[in-house]
């Protein structure tokens, strides 16, 4: 994420012995960068400026909106909707941890143990992406339906009593509870965790494991001291790719959740489309962005892999 503004590598001088000086090549890197920069300018920088401006405007649809540098909007947005902010962070964090717990063993299996099944398993991981996000989430409504087998089994095993006690579910159901939303988030973002984990695990030289064994390291110690540290770049990028979109997601909370599971994405959507309070919606977006930026910076610093992400 820090590489956006990095200077392009210096052009390599080509065939300096030729007489006519070829000035054409000198700007090649810039020409190559141009489409990307234009794209970012038009579809990233301009909307950002526009939204930043919107967030400090006041007015109404009838009277029009004018920039009045009304920064109080930010404070109002934060004080009005901090529960939804906290909830978004909590749900996204829970989903990220679940993704890591589910994804790491699977990525490990694909990278080291799958053999000729590797490609098939990879396809199975990616296959859900061939259908729409919405359809996949709606399918979860059928899976977790009140009278369905999953809820029946969880009830028989008294798992729901535990989750009720923890406040993750309510009554004899899973749908329309926080648990359902976290499950939906986990499911929808799992491939974003598995793919980076797999690429960084797959790059580890198998001989390192042998060397660890030769030095009398038990498998668990090998994993803790060799494999896991070397897979850190994958862990970091996987958690980021899961956490960031999950924190801003609103589809899962909308379809699988209830009134007490609304996330900040839902609030922004409601403010923007229903209440037509564009400044508050823009301010909420910027607060969300700032919060994620701060958390991510802190996280990358702590995990010490700035250069690998």
């Amino acid at each position, binding site marked *: 994420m820090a590489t956006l503004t990095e200077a392009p590598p210096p052009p390599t001088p080509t065939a300096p012995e030729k007489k006519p000086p070829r000035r054409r090549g000198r700007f090649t890197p810039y020409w190559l960068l141009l489409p990307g920069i234009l794209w970012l300018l038009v579809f990233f920088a301009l909307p950002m*400026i*526009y939204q*930043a*401006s*919107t967030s*400090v*405007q006041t*007015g*109404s*649809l*009838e*009277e*029009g*909106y*004018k*920039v009045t540098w009304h920064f109080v909007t930010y404070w109002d947005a934060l004080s009005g*909707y901090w529960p*939804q902010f906290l909830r978004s962070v909590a749900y996204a964090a829970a989903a990220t941890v679940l993704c890591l717990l589910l994804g790491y063993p699977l990525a490990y299996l694909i990278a080291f143990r799958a053999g000729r099944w590797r490609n098939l398993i990879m396809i199975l991981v990616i296959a859900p992406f061939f259908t729409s996000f919405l359809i996949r989430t*709606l399918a979860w*409504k*059928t899976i977790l*339906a*009140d*009278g369905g087998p999953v809820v029946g089994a969880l009830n028989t095993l008294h798992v729901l009593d535990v989750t009720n006690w923890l406040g993750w579910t*309510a*009554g004899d*159901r899973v*749908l*329309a509870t926080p648990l359902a939303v976290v499950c939906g988030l986990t499911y929808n973002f799992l491939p974003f965790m598995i793919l980076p984990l797999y690429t960084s695990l797959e790059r580890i030289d198998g001989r390192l494991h042998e060397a660890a064994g030769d030095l009398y390291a038990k498998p668990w110690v090998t994993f803790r001291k060799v494999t896991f540290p070397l897979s850190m770049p994958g862990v970091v990028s996987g958690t980021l790719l899961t956490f960031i979109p999950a924190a801003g997601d609103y589809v899962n909370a909308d*379809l699988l*959740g*209830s*009134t*007490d*599971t*609304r996330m900040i994405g*839902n*609030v922004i959507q*409601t*403010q*923007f*489309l*229903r*209440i*037509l*309070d*564009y400044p508050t919606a823009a301010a909420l977006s910027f607060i969300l962005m700032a919060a994620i930026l701060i958390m991510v910076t802190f996280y990358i610093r702590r995990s010490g892999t700035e250069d690998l992400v």
Partner: protein
Amino acid sequence: MEQFEPDRLSPAQVAAVRRSFRNGRASLTRRSLLRASAGGALAVGGVAGLSACGIPAAGNTQGGVSADDRSAKEKTVNFSNWTEYMDVDDSGKHHPTLEQFTRRTGIKVKYTEDINDNNEFFGKIKPQLAAGQDTGRDLIVLTDWLAARLIRLGWVQKLDASNLPHAYANLSAQFRDPDWDPGRAYSYVWQGISTVIAYNKKALDGVEVKSVSDLLDNPKLKGRVGFLSEMRDSIGMTLLDMGKDPATFTADDFDAAVARIQKGVDKGQIRRFTGNDYTSDLTSGDFAACIAWAGDVVQLKADSPDIDFIIPDSGYMTSTDNLLVPNKARHKTNAERLIDFYYEPKPAAELAAYINYVCPVDGVKAELEKIDKDAAENPLIIPDKAMAEKSHAFRSLSSKEETEFEEKFAKLTGA
């Protein structure tokens, strides 16, 4: 290009100059040059640009609402509608009533199903309409509250009554005089939508549901009740249940209705607020009962015998989807002829036989009986007198009220 010394002009200005040569409509004037240079300044301005990009007042665009009507020269009309809101033949490719219209008038209909959600569609057309530009659509279908907003903002054109003889004569009495468009100067009803209480017999398991109070209070339904995320339907039904009239309620009445529903949320009685997706909850039995749109329920009932609906004694809400001609539409007369066509009893009956909503056209019953006897007897499609008397409409809201009420309702639904 050399004689214009393009290197002294900004790219935006050059573009304006070029445009002026290509067609007359945007021919070079002092104003267009000024606007072009303002655009250029905006592009380079940093923080200064921030303050320049406010959203213009809606009233500013009322100046030129009509474009020159090309209806006579171009025999087409661009019609944007909701999905599954038009009759389709067995092959699924042809719309028989639209084709009849084309055969009779020679006007081709470019029919697009690109409206899925009022709020989203408003977001989509807002930039063009606010800037006084053509949306590329001659006829759009919007629910009454949004139609009211567009009329309030001056973003739709007044219809020419002389092109609408059938519509004028055949519009049902109950739709004639909405408070947001008295006498139907700007809009005509496409279909009416009744809001009722739907239930799943199997999931209810003998529990009796007769009113919104049952939904909100019966402990046997805890966590299995659905309300609509459409404010006017949920609040309207609750107001009726409390003995208030949704056509004349006050802000206090609104707060009382919100508080009444809030209790249901706090008790865990209401499972969630839904859009159209309540249909899946209802068929799966996750909702035992919910507030629902009758058109959907007629459809669901045909597919599953467990689903049925009731109309509370206190009455039910009827809203309308309305045909409107947006500002700057190029084929206004053609659009008006299309509106009028659907107010003839025969096409109206064919449409009503296919989609199960309230038909706004008088004198359709006889025609509908020839096609589908059951539909003609269904009071949800052709309301009889008793039904029409129970029907209520939500009063129109001022812009301030709309924001305030929507905000309160959003708090109720969790955000």
